């Protein structure tokens, strides 16, 4: 019997979407079928990888058999596999939503043609980030993500989108270059860039400076207050599926790298942790205030991303002297919860705009058309983002507060509570608009705005709500390969 060569899923999940991107670009008329096909294929490969991690533990592939430190290793542990599953899962549902929303003949040809190559390129970059074990490789993957993300931002071709995309491009390039400068410092100090080498290195001022530079670059890319200025316009002006991808997945890549740096490079210093926590608080307050003031639905959702990212940084910071060994769990769960719920929310917001014809929050209650399912999806996603049980957002916030209580950091509990209260306030603005029926001039029409396109946001919203029940197994899975301490 001939033995089949084992397929290396690590390489496959990076290269399958890349090949798909090229193919979708070369076959513009079939781009959507190629696109969906490649995403489904990548999702299947990611599932195989998840199974492999589940049965065998962390998996490593030295590309070309060179091996670190000179070669590039790909490694999947529980954390990377979870994020990859999140990315392909959310990506698959957003793709189905996109298939529907770009299928309309009123959608410009350019959108239908270029969405798929850009999204597949993005997927390839995201998977690359999750599997990289080398700082320079991370830099390259970050740039791949940036280029694809900027392309998705300007896809509609409207002047506001191009303006926002250009601002995003500047922020993105600057963030990547700060990261690169940090990489240069690390090489100057250690002469190697692989994670294993970083782990063995003794702390030094040069490495401290490198870490600060890299975290600053990543904060710019993930839009941590006060470096968030590019995000709201970029996410609000992109088309709905693109916004969902940008807000749910792209910002998570930089957050993930921050987690990894905290794991490998140095125990974060007290000062840096305090600063990260403080900026997180700033993000929560400023993002929430702007969300309360926003006039457009998509802008409100985009500002809520700024606030939610702030909360993830608070989760990073809350462990303080205990290090990331504990606090990463809350941060990782919050990232997961935000990705799923925010994708649902942007898709739902896009559907609402499509059905009602505008997305002015003040006039939502005057509309005679009520896209019921889209509104339901929006509300369910809001429940997860606010953090009501049994949602995934609740599990994340619970672990955050539990940890803060045991280590006696009561101020972080206050911050989490304030964040929750503010998110209730700004989402209520929208939900009241959905639920008031006394202000429209005509009777609510028979057409309730039900469409196949509602399936994707509804599924995502239900996942965001229900996965909270599985928080414990998800955490146990993420800990495979001991991403943060425990046994080596």
């Amino acid at each position, binding site marked *: 019997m001939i033995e089949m060569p084992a397929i290396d899923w690590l390489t496959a999940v990076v290269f399958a979407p890349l090949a798909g991107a090229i193919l979708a670009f070369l076959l513009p008329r079939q781009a959507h079928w190629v696109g969906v096909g490649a995403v489904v294929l990548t999702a299947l490969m990611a599932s195989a990888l998840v199974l492999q991690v589940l049965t065998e533990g962390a998996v490593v592939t030295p590309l070309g058999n060179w091996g670190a430190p000179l070669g590039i290793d790909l490694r999947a542990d529980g954390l990377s596999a979870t994020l990859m599953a999140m990315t392909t899962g959310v990506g698959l549902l957003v793709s189905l939503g996109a298939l529907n929303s770009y299928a309309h003949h009123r959608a410009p040809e350019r959108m239908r043609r270029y969405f798929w190559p850009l999204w597949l390129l993005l997927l390839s970059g995201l998977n690359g980030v999750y599997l990289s074990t080398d700082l*320079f490789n991370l830099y390259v993957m970050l*740039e791949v993500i940036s280029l694809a993300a900027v392309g998705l931002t300007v896809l509609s071709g409207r002047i506001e989108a*191009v303006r926002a*995309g*250009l601002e995003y*491009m500047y922020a993105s390039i600057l963030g990547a270059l700060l990261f690169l*400068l940090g990489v*240069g410092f690390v*090489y100057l100090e250690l002469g190697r860039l692989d994670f294993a080498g970083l782990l063995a290195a003794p702390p030094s001022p040069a490495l401290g400076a490198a870490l600060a530079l890299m975290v600053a670059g990543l904060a710019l890319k993930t839009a941590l207050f006060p470096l968030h200025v590019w995000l709201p316009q970029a996410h609000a002006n992109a088309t709905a599926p693109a916004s969902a991808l940008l807000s749910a997945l792209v910002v998570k890549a930089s957050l993930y790298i921050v987690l990894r740096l905290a794991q490998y490079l140095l125990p974060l210093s007290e000062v840096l942790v305090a600063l990260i926590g403080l900026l997180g608080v700033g993000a929560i307050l400023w993002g929430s205030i702007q969300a309360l003031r926003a006039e457009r639905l998509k802008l409100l959702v985009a500002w809520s991303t700024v606030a939610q990212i702030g909360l993830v940084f608070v989760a990073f910071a809350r462990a303080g002297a205990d290090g990331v060994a504990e606090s990463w769990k809350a941060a990782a769960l919050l990232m997961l919860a935000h990705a799923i719920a925010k994708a649902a929310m942007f898709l739902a917001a896009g559907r609402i705009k499509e059905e009602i014809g505008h997305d002015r929050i003040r006039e939502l209650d005057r509309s005679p058309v009520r896209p019921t399912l889209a509104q339901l999806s929006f509300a369910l996603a809001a429940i997860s983002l606010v953090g009501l049980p049994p949602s995934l957002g609740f599990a994340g916030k619970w672990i955050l507060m539990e940890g803060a209580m045991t280590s006696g950091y009561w101020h972080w509990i206050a911050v989490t509570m304030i964040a929750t209260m503010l998110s209730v306030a700004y989402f209520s603005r929208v939900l009241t608009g959905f639920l008031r029926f006394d202000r429209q001039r005509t009777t609510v029409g028979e057409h309730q705005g039900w469409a196949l396109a509602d399936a994707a946001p509804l599924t995502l919203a239900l996942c965001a709500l229900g996965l909270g029940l599985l928080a414990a197994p998800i955490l146990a899975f993420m800990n495979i390969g001991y991403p943060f301490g425990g046994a080596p």
Partner: protein
Amino acid sequence: MSTGLIFGLTGLGVFVVGLCGALVLVDPLRRVLALKLCSVGAGFMLVVAAWKAPPEAPDPVPHALVITGIVVMISATAVALALIRRLHTLEHEHHD
């Protein structure tokens, strides 16, 4: 002062000049140029890392990294320039 230190400080200086430009300037094209300066500065740091005292050959790995960095920056610059041109055209149409 050693050669490495002089080069390193120069690289850092160039990066900081570019950083100030990227944060302060308003003109889109000038901002791109400022970011290019940043990339030159960061590249400098990597080249410095390759330097070794004369009898020894320089470390080739940072050179490979710098070349990759240059390629990445060329693509990013191209995209930024294309966006600036498109924005220019759109603003023109807007005014007409």
